[in-house]
């Protein structure tokens, strides 16, 4: 049966050149694995790809979500680059992404190294550190609004006061200079455990013999991490950096629930701007243009990341 469905390529005289490659690729798409994937792909195409691609056309219109639409060329895109709030939100989005990628992965790696060690409570700790990742981001944001209560005797300020660090009390979400970093803090708190799990999977795959050999050679703990563990963690690093970058670039829930982009526009991100443009202001055309730019930007950054990070992975 297999031979009837997919004749062994070796038995065929391989036609040379590009035409042969195209034919081989065509044959691959008609092979049984694709048959099984086809229903799921058809549904995916119907409910995700088709609406997404057909929505692109709205980026070139002035549609308000209710009435007729008329094409306005590239007006929405030129508006995007002239729009002070959108430009500010792009800067905020990039700052948040850099902060989240760096801190979340650093904390995740430290947690993974900690719970990978042979300590008694490591299973419990793994669950505890991962637990916030399964909670809805909106719930986490509401919880942190209480933690970030600006009163001197409540939440984080209360703890700082109690341990003699009252001078560090802040208006965490109300201070325009601090709001996005406070949001970054809550995102890191929630998803550092998620990064930890991916690093942990990588650590489990590092052969113990390599560590033993390095120890026999007299390598210190740091040298073993730097020259044995770290290179073998490269696939986990790739996945973590990519996921946290994408998560940072399209950050919405936490910002919307915690500050709604305020105070003023101090914590506005591209996602909150596109949401407001569509559902608060009724500028669906402009909002689609922002969404399109954001999608292309996320895709470009992800591809660049994959290209560079895959290159440093150890086979």
């Amino acid at each position, binding site marked *: 049966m297999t031979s009837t469905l997919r004749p062994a390529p070796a038995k065929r005289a391989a036609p040379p050149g590009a035409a042969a490659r195209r034919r081989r690729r065509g044959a691959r798409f008609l092979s049984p694995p694709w048959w099984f994937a086809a229903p799921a792909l058809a549904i995916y195409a*119907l409910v995700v790809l088709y609406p997404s691609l057909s929505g692109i056309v709205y980026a070139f219109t002035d549609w*308000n*979500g209710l009435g007729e639409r008329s094409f306005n060329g590239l007006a929405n895109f030129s508006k995007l680059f002239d729009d002070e709030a959108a430009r500010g939100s792009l800067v905020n989005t990039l700052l948040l992404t850099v902060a989240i990628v760096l801190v979340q992965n650093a904390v995740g790696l430290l947690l993974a190294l900690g719970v990978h060690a042979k300590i008694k409570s490591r299973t419990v700790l793994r669950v505890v550190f991962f637990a916030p990742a399964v909670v809805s981001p909106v719930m986490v944001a509401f919880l942190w609004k209480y933690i970030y209560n600006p009163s001197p005797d409540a939440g984080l300020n209360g703890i700082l006061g109690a341990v003699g660090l009252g001078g560090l009390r802040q208006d965490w979400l109300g*201070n*325009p200079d601090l709001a996005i970093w406070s949001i970054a803090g809550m995102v890191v708190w929630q998803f550092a455990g998620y990064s930890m799990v991916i690093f942990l999977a990588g650590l489990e795959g590092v052969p113990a013999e390599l560590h033993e050999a390095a120890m026999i050679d007299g390598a210190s703990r740091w040298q073993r991490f730097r020259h044995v563990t770290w290179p073998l963690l490269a696939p986990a690093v790739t996945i973590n950096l990519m996921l946290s970058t994408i998560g940072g670039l399209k950050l919405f829930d936490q910002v919307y629930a915690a500050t709604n982009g305020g105070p*003023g526009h101090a914590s506005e991100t591209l996602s909150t701007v596109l949401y407001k443009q569509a*559902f608060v202001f*009724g500028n669906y055309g402009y909002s689609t243009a922002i969404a399109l730019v954001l999608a292309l930007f996320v895709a470009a950054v992800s591809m660049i990341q994959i290209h560079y990070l895959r290159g440093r992975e150890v086979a």
Partner: protein
Amino acid sequence: MTSSYGTAALSRRGFLGLTGGVAAMGALAACGGTSGGSSGGGGGGGATLRLVAVADQQKPLELLLKEYTKSKFSASYAPTDQVQTSVRTQLGAGNAPDVHVVFPGDGSAMSMAQIAQAGLLADLSDQAWTKRIPPGLKPAFQKDGKTFLYSAGSSVIGAIYNKKVFQEAGVEPPTTWSEFLDVCEKIKKKGKVPIALGAQTQWVTQLITYALVPSTVYAKNPKFDEQMRAGSASFANSGWKDAFDMYLELQKRGYFNDNPNGTTLEQQTSMVATGKAAMAIQVSAVLPDFRKAASNADDLDMFPVPGADDANQVWVPAGVVVGLGVSARGKNVDEAKAFLEFLGQQQNMNRWAEAVACVPLTRDSASKIDPVLKSFLPFIDANKAVPFMDQNWPNAEIQPAHFAVVQELLGGRTTVAKALAKLDETYRKK
């Protein structure tokens, strides 16, 4: 079975064709489901009508739906932002609920004017209750002379205050701006926060300006909105500047709690209800929440914020409360309109108004008005009340711009002149 697989090219093509066919049928079926609306109605014939409203409307609607027997309703309620997102999308797709929430006037994406302009709201002008709409409130209900909104009445913005804190400080509700500042000063000297401000909840930022602008703008120039639309007036050259200056004066004198931009509505409510703060400038619709948070609901009362030094020049904001409209493209237009006609009966308006602590659109001897709102009635009866400012703004971006500039003013990030310029720029957007 095996042989059919054996004819690989044909079966693959057949399989893919079948899959594509199923997908195409699915797409066609989906399209058919969203395009079936027709105007006119009358075809419902005992159908269950869909009603989507905001959480604030749940209490009165549940009460009145129980008594309405002519049609069956499937009602759902959600917070304003969620309803705004879902209902507007349904309106755009042509499958809006038969009866749905509509915001009065203009100035928001779900406002009466913007939806009616797209031809998506049924005309209610032939209903008896529409003849009783007070002239001053007609812009909130009508576009081009036709009524598209049902609303049970008006809520007001004023100072919700804790009577115990006022008594301890030995002060009474003020009637002029100078008296208001004196009251705040005396409360501050007693070690209490005079005004709790939860400006992190963005819509709360607008309430102090809204409380002052009727006196600083409309008492002097009742035609301000018309002049704004005509382009002959601006925020920058009007009493809006005075209102912002007065807002910031309260902050400068230390009458707000610390860090208002980091304080939420819930924290503001708790501060007044527990007596940590003396008052909050708020809309009367939130009175039930303040009462719930207080150990004794009778400790709370309300007074109009005097935005002028001459008590005769004090005006108040009284905005039409969020209402309902009928989808013009629904299948049950007549049944839906009949329900709104039922809601428009005076006794039902009274019951709705009582449930949400607002002043009924029209009053009769049976109207029960929340005692804390009684100090506002003389202003309403003397035509010294104006709708909430955003209800007359021409686009949905001005109100959020107002939220943002107030937060920036409180955070010292902008000046009054720049804030007003930003509002003018946003107002002129097409």
